[in-house]
């Protein structure tokens, strides 16, 4: 609770608005490109990682409120709690240094994805009658046909799409953090100092630090 106030400064409030904007913009574009992912939580994970769990939770929750208020996806509000937990998890993972390396970030993404699938399934089952009203309902039908009950079918459906979606989301956020100048990251105060530093661990120089970080970022992205 001590961090609550610290995570709602004007600076982080502004970042939250931008984060939700990113969620909606990328979410709708991905839908249009026909990718089998959602990628509608990049902003939530980014805010969680930079500012902390409370800010991440607020960004997730309010994102789903905004999806509802815009009428783009009115049922989104039912999943606002799950979105909040995703943002909070991103904040906890980042604080504990899980965004320091690509492997840990990927693992954090998969864990978050599994948890998200498990938490979303009861909502789909009991609020929406076991479906989500999208193409993935074909998977639910397949699992029901294979003999799983309503809840398990939805869990199974979720574990097909959510871990992959969150894996890609966390990797995107990891690479964004790598490219972001250290000065910007330090301003929000959640990430441990080493986060997003180049893997070879170049030492920080006070002068020309920005260009060094940029070069390193470029190098590591390429290496990937």
């Amino acid at each position, binding site marked *: 609770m001590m961090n609550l106030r610290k995570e709602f400064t004007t600076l982080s409030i502004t970042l939250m608005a931008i984060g939700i904007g990113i969620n909606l913009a990328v979410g709708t574009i991905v839908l249009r490109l026909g990718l089998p992912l959602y990628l509608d939580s990049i902003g939530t994970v980014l805010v969680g990682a930079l500012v902390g769990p409370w800010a991440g939770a607020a960004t997730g929750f309010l994102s789903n409120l905004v999806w509802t208020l815009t009428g783009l996806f009115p049922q989104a509000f039912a999943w606002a709690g799950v979105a909040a937990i995703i943002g909070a998890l991103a904040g906890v993972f980042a604080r504990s240094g899980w965004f320091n390396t690509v492997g840990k970030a990927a693992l954090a993404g998969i864990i978050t994805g599994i948890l998200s699938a498990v938490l979303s399934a009861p909502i789909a089952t009991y609020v929406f009658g076991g479906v989500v009203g999208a193409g993935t309902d074909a998977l639910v039908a397949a699992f029901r046909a294979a003999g799983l009950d309503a809840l398990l079918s939805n869990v199974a459906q979720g574990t097909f799409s959510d871990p992959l979606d969150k894996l890609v989301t966390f990797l995107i956020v990891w690479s964004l953090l790598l490219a972001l100048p250290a000065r910007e990251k*330090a301003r929000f105060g959640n990430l441990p100092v080493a986060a997003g530093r180049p893997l070879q661990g170049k030492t920080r120089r006070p002068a020309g630090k920005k260009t060094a970080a940029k070069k390193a970022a470029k190098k590591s992205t390429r290496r990937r």
Partner: protein
Amino acid sequence: MIELKKFSYWYPGTEEPALQRISLDISEGEFVGIVGANGAGKSTLCYALSGFVPHFYNGESEGQLTFNGQDMAALDLGQLAGQVGLVFQNPFNQISGARFTVREEIAFGLENLGLPRSEMHARIDEALDLVNIQDLADRSPFSVSGGQQQRIAIASILAMQPRVLVLDEPTSQLDPDGTRDVFTALSKLVSTRKITVILAEHKLEWLATFCDRVIALGGGKLRAEGTPQEVLSSEQMLRLGIGRTQYSEAAARLLRTKKLPVTLEQAKKALK
């Protein structure tokens, strides 16, 4: 009104000061121009004069920075907001986005100050008038051009009736039309209102026609100070990477005079 005494400032985690031992006294009603190459410290000085350094950015400072005799660090940003207005470079970033029409956007700051409704309407009308955007009042602030957005940003600050207006390169991201609109609004403001204005700007021709005094920065230090004619026509401007006005350059090539003109009017006289 705003006074700096040997003021130095370091951004968090940096070893080079962004401002170095700057002494400066700005009095009420003055129009002061700040010139300098990129990275010379113009923005940081603007932030210091409006209280964002040290309030918004942490970091370390030395020397004195006072507003009306009070230590700037002792005042809080909420109090300062109604006293000192700051206009930034990027118009898009200054639109709060929390309101849906230009009129409501201008009202946003006034709502935060807790003003009664009737006074808000009066102030908004006056501000719209000052920057000449009455016809945009009911449009969305996101549906207008950059120059119009920047004038909305200026109107939003003016409506708060600050005693000091600080503008940090308000036209750097605008096209020539937008630049002209902003400066026309500014000249109207200067002629109709008694308000202290501090303007950091690369466009020296415009600066020269408005300012009572010009301050030149280089490497975070104060390098020159004086009337536009004294400062902007000097050789030093070229060394600092600031350049000179087109009038000074033309006159330097055409005339053998020590006293170079810096505005169109002065150039006309000198060339006669």
